[in-house]
Each structure stands twice: as structure tokens, then as C-alpha cells.
């Protein structure tokens, strides 16, 4: 059987777009990470979105979709001066507040969202908020324990400058080019939700040190630290600062 160019062109279109249409219908076609926060599985808040699952890649708009807090409120809380706060990615806070002595970043947004909506969050680690965020939270119904934590973790910092948008920050992540300057280097070496054990090893932390922090043998280095914590029933929010401390030691 001979095939000529026109039927071949038609076949290419049908197979390509038919394949995409089929996989879309099956729910398999995903061109980005899902931005749906995991929910509490038990207790009083079962079924509600868990602020601990907010990731750096979330925009303020994603936070609103999951937790109902308007991007303008988040922008006010974190002093984000942007024409489009809805498109601002949470991870950009780390860069915007890079000069701060206390880390304002994804964990801060988690804390703010939890207190704002009266949702539980693990307070065993230090997470910091701006004075503006604290002021907004004090207008909500906080428990005495939350108020005490808030008083101890409110910091006075100048306004955040708009950070690069969306994918631009991770694009240079862990690449040789990105490691060329010390300021970029320190900004890169942050343990985040998508950090793999491979990256921690590449940053100079020994396998022994990692295993000591985790309390377990290290898995395949390509595994994300956060995924491993979830699998092993470890609290990522506890592991993260401990691992970061090891990274900071070898910086």
C-alpha cells in the first residue's frame, strides 16, 4: 500500500491532536503542576484545604482559590507592590526579602493563611510575618497561643520589591550558570518543597549528615525531600530547617 503526502499530513494531525484530545478527556493531559492544596484528612477540619501544602509555585490567585483570601489582602500583608498581585508567586517573597535577617517566604504565607482562616498549623518551628500581616491577623479571632506566637514572630521589614515572575526563578535553579555569583548561590541553596536529595548532596551536605537529620537511610537521590517526608510520616516543616542548617554550614 502506497501513502502520499496529503494522507500522511492528515494522519499526523489526527494522531497528534486526537491523542491530546483523548488524554485530555481521560484527565491525563497536564501541562502544569496541579495547584490544589491537599486537605486535612481527619479531625474538625477534615476536607478543608491545608495551608501546610501551600507551595512556592502558588500565585496569590491560587491561594485565593484554595483558601478564599483575596490577593490584595496577601499583597498588603506581605507588602508586595505589584500591579497584578494575583499573579505574584509565593516563592518570590524569599527573593524579595532576601536581605531580611528573618526568613519571609512560603512558610510565612502558610502561617498567615492558617491564622487568617482559623486553621491548625504546626507552630514548633519559627515562621515569621511582617508587621502588616500581624496587624491584619489581630483583626481576626486568634487564640491566646496564636497571639503569643504572633507577638514573638513579627518582624519589621521594609517593603518587598516585585520579584521576577513565575518560572524565571526556577529556570536558573541548580545550574552551573546560576552558581557563578555568591549572592545567586546563597539564594539558590534553599531547601524547598521540590528540593531533591541530589541537590542537597550537590550543595555539599554529606549523605551521613542528611541521614542524621532524616533519622532514616537516604532514598534514591532523585527523590524530593518533601515526598520522602510524606512517605515516611516525617514532618517536612521540621525537617526543612534542620536540613537547611546543614546546607548553611557548608555554604
Amino acid at each position, binding site marked *: 500500500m502506497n*501513502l502520499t503526502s496529503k494522507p500522511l499530513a492528515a494522519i499526523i494531525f489526527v494522531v497528534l491532536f486526537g491523542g491530546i484530545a483523548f488524554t485530555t478527556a481521560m484527565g491525563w493531559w497536564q501541562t502544569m503542576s496541579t495547584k490544589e492544596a491537599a486537605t486535612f484528612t481527619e479531625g474538625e477540619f477534615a476536607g478543608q484545604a491545608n495551608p501546610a501544602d501551600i507551595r512556592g509555585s502558588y500565585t496569590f490567585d491560587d491561594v485565593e482559590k484554595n483558601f478564599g483570601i483575596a490577593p490584595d489582602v496577601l499583597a498588603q500583608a506581605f507588602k508586595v507592590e505589584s500591579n497584578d498581585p494575583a499573579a505574584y508567586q509565593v516563592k518570590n517573597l524569599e527573593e524579595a526579602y532576601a536581605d531580611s535577617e528573618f526568613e519571609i517566604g512560603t512558610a510565612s504565607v502558610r502561617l498567615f493563611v492558617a491564622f487568617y482562616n482559623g486553621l491548625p498549623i504546626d507552630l514548633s518551628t519559627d515562621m515569621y510575618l511582617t508587621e502588616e500581616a500581624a496587624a491584619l491577623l489581630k483583626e481576626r479571632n486568634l487564640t491566646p497561643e496564636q497571639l503569643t506566637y504572633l507577638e514573638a514572630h513579627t518582624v519589621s521589614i521594609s517593603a518587598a520589591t516585585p520579584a521576577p515572575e513565575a518560572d524565571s526563578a526556577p529556570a536558573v535553579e541548580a545550574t552551573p550558570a546560576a552558581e557563578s555569583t555568591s549572592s545567586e548561590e546563597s539564594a539558590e541553596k534553599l531547601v524547598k518543597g521540590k528540593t531533591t536529595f541530589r541537590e542537597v548532596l550537590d550543595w555539599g551536605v554529606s549523605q551521613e549528615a542528611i541521614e542524621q537529620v532524616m533519622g532514616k537511610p537516604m532514598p534514591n537521590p532523585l527523590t524530593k525531600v518533601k515526598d520522602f517526608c510524606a512517605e515516611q510520616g516525617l514532618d517536612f516543616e521540621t525537617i526543612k530547617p534542620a536540613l537547611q542548617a546543614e546546607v548553611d554550614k557548608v555554604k
Partner: protein
Amino acid sequence: MKIFGKRLFRPRSIWIRKVVQWFFFLLIALIAVNHTLVENGGGIAFLSTASLHALCPFGGVVTIYQYATVGTFVQKIHESSFILMIIAFLLAILFGPVFCGWVCPMGTVQEWVSKLGQKFFRRKFNHFVPEKLDKVLRYLRYLVLAWVIYVTAASGTLIFAEYDPYFALFNFWTTEVALPSLIILGVTLLLSLFVERPWCKYACPYGAVLGITNLFRVFQIRRVESTCKNDGACSILCPMNIPVDAVKTVRDHQCISCLECTSEAVCPVAKTVVFNVGGVK
């Protein structure tokens, strides 16, 4: 095909392929621009907002190791890359690397630049590289493939994006693009003035993967010896310099199934160079 009395395509060429190439080039370009617009709070509603990584089937290839060992994708790679990889493989098993010859915008851009080279150098165009050297260089892309797979598996990150001219082509206006990829894109376009598809021939790791299907694909390009005039037209005009007139069935790992050698295009004798399944008499 004519517009205002002017011929759009070279006589006896596979014009439908050019149309398909234009379509995919514009589609990917628009999606890449839309991705940037969406990041800046704008965007075109009916267009996909996917990143270029999400629409590259080679992303699926480089993430296979991590997916098999850890069950996750390499950073920035999503299910869509995996699905496109499977679709491109399916097409390649049936028809050879049609993705390279008909769809890939990087190949299309090289062909466009090569049009200038053809005008400047005429018959010398695409015949600058000494045959012996050319034959060896054609295997370079397998080394590139091995390197890309190794560094991706070892690092869990898309290191190749730093060097990928295709990524640079559709991201040169963003801060995401790395200098090495821009340089490689520039060099590729410059070389395209002398050689047809230099990136595809010598360096493309995805072309290396799909090229292997030429050895066992279902539909093959075949030459009917009994009617062949041995004028060499099929070989002279092959963009990949494959000596079609010297073989009965084209199994060269570099064939991109463009069909330009067939009797539908450059071969002057009907049903002599055909694209078929089941063989010829």
C-alpha cells in the same frame, strides 16, 4: 499552489509539508508568547498557556529514568511531555521520524534559513562537509543524547535547557533563556546557510532517538529498480544527503520522512520512489 499568480512552493515539492510546518511553528510560537503574557497578567483566552517544556516530547524521554526509579518527573516536565513522547514514538514506528520532518519548528526554521543558502551557493549548498567527516559527525548526536540522559538522570534537573536551541528560539525574549542556548541557536542558523538542518544532522538528541525507528518502521521509502533511471535526483535533493539512488529501501538513521525524494516530488518517474508498506516489485 499560487497566490496572486505567484507560485508559493517549488514545483514538484511536498507543499503540504510546508503548510504543516508553518502551522506547528506558528502554534508553538503563539503558545510561547501566550505563556509570557499570562505570567505578566495578560494572555489570549483560547490559546494554551503551557510552557515550552510541557509541549516538548523530548522532555518525556529525559524523564524516563527518574519516572522509572522514583515515580516522579524531572522538574518542569509534566504528563503532557510524556504523552507527546508516546504519540511521536507511535508516529515514528509507523512512518519514521515525521515529527522531525513535518512538525518540529527547529527543523522548520533551519529549512527557512537554508533557502537563502540555496540561493547563494546553488548546487554546492548542502555539500560543503567532506563525505568521510560528515559520516562520522552524523553519530555525534548519539553522544549528545547519552550526555543529556546522563546529566538529567544524575541531577534530576533539565540541564539540557541551558543548551537547547529550540528552547532559545521560543524564549529569547525571556530571562529564562541561557546564553549557551542562544549561542548554539545562532551557530545553528549560521550553519544552515551552508548545510541543510545542521542541528538535526549532527547534534539533535531527539532526532537521534527517533532516527532509530528508521531501521524497523512500518512504512518505508522504497526505490523500484526496474523503472529507476538512475539520474540521482532523489539523492541530490535529499535534505539529509541520503544516497536514496543506491539503496532499495531507505533505512538510514537520518531519514526524516519528508518525502521530497519520492515520485510525488523530485523523482521524475511515476511510482519509482514510493512511501509504502509491503515492498515493491
